[in-house]
């Protein structure tokens, strides 16, 4: 049993370093996708509240599609789709899996987070915008200085949830050969024929990231709510 554990170590024949690199790739793709997906989600949420019916329709179509199609399928369509399209322009093109993963996961995150943004936007009362307008702030300024800061507090739990889902979804990028945790452990399994050990290690790594994220998010929520405890809201 102990000699098997050495396979996870850093010695000769150990996969420890490779696993750490895989973990780094997993975290990198999740962190790289996050701002892109959240910004897209906010944009789509604003689109859903647009006065232009065409923009509203497009935003709704976007969420319906990317919430309804399996992430794995989205990943394949983006990866192979862009590959085929770009090769028509330049035959030497090969799609970097990292970018494909980022785009696919970002689109899905955009669709899911837009729902959170919409609910948060609804929670900021009309009077806030009107007061900002009365103070002479432009619509853009009102959004940036008045609405957005209040938005974040309400949106945080939902967005935190989106982050946890994203973290787990990154495991799918292994199928387009991005060397994340799943990719490394699959390769280790092929070499060593110890699937239980390696997939067990992988699942514990993911669990660790999830627990750390949950802890961090709880702290962020406590911080975002710090001004509200006096009104009966909980800070913990």
């Amino acid at each position: 049993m102990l000699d098997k554990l050495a396979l996870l170590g850093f010695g000769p024949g150990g996969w420890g370093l490779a696993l750490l690199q895989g973990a780094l790739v997993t975290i990198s793709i999740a962190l790289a996708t996050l701002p892109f997906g959240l910004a897209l989600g906010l944009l789509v949420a604003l689109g859903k509240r647009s006065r232009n019916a065409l923009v509203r329709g497009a935003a709704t179509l976007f969420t319906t599609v990317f919430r309804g199609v399996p992430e794995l399928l989205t990943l394949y369509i983006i990866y192979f789709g862009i590959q085929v399209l770009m090769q028509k322009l330049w035959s030497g093109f090969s799609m970097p899996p990292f970018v494909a993963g980022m785009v696919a996961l970002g689109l899905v995150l955009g669709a899911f987070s837009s729902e959170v943004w919409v609910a948060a936007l609804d929670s900021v009362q009309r009077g806030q915008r009107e007061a900002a307008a009365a103070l002479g702030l432009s619509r853009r300024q009102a959004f940036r200085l008045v609405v957005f800061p209040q938005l974040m507090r309400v949106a945080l739990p939902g967005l935190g949830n989106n982050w946890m889902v994203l973290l787990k979804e990154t495991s799918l990028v292994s199928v387009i050969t991005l060397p994340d945790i799943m990719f490394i452990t699959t390769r280790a399994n092929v070499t060593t024929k110890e699937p239980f050990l390696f997939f067990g290690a992988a699942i514990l790594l993911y669990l660790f990231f999830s627990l750390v994220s949950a802890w961090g998010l709880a702290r962020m929520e406590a911080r975002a709510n710090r001004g509200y405890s006096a009104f009966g809201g909980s800070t913990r």
Partner: protein
Amino acid sequence: MRWCEYPGLITGNEALQNYGCRMATGLGITLQLVAISVALGFVMAVPLAVGRLYGPRWLAATITGYTTFFRGTPLLCQLFLVYYGLGQFRPFWQEVGLWWLFREPFYCALLTFTVNTAAYQAEILRGAIQSIPRGQFEGALSLGLPRWKTLLLVIMPQAMILALRPLGNELIVMIKSSAIASLVTLFDLMGATRLAFARSFDLSIYLYAALVYLALVEIVRRVWDLFERRLTRHMALR
């Protein structure tokens, strides 16, 4: 001519003509996988949620550990751990007579999806039960109902209405997640589509599969809306 040949005929798409029927069979497997695992998951989730809320401390802690583990790790990783990882102990499973389960990718996927969705559904039910006002418990107890009857006749019916929407979302998530089963050599809708693409190199086959998944999800959503309207018709929502 079978019905599954029509989509290829209508669209004139060669890959769809050749693989339409395989995809239809795959769709059947996807539907089986999702329907069985979500139903079994629900059966598991009810005692899990109740045990988590009203059970002794050790039981509640164990259930919390279970839900945290399955909700905190990717389904793909869980599936690989079951199919490849547990499949590694073949002599043991043969001895206890369970090798038939771990040998078949379908059963492995079914097992993984069931325990996974049970964890999510248990959390949904727990939240729903917790948001029923205390007064409902107290009222039932003061009427002399025993605890289990209070739960069964007073709390659960109200909690189920609250849980309805998130449970529908969970069903949709499972329809989408079931595509992962294709990665353990199972020819569900995704698996059949992957095969079709690998042989035809026709990218549009993925788009047709996406349309099928989209239709599935949309149907579930509409049906769930009907459910909800019917079950909440006694409440003055509007």
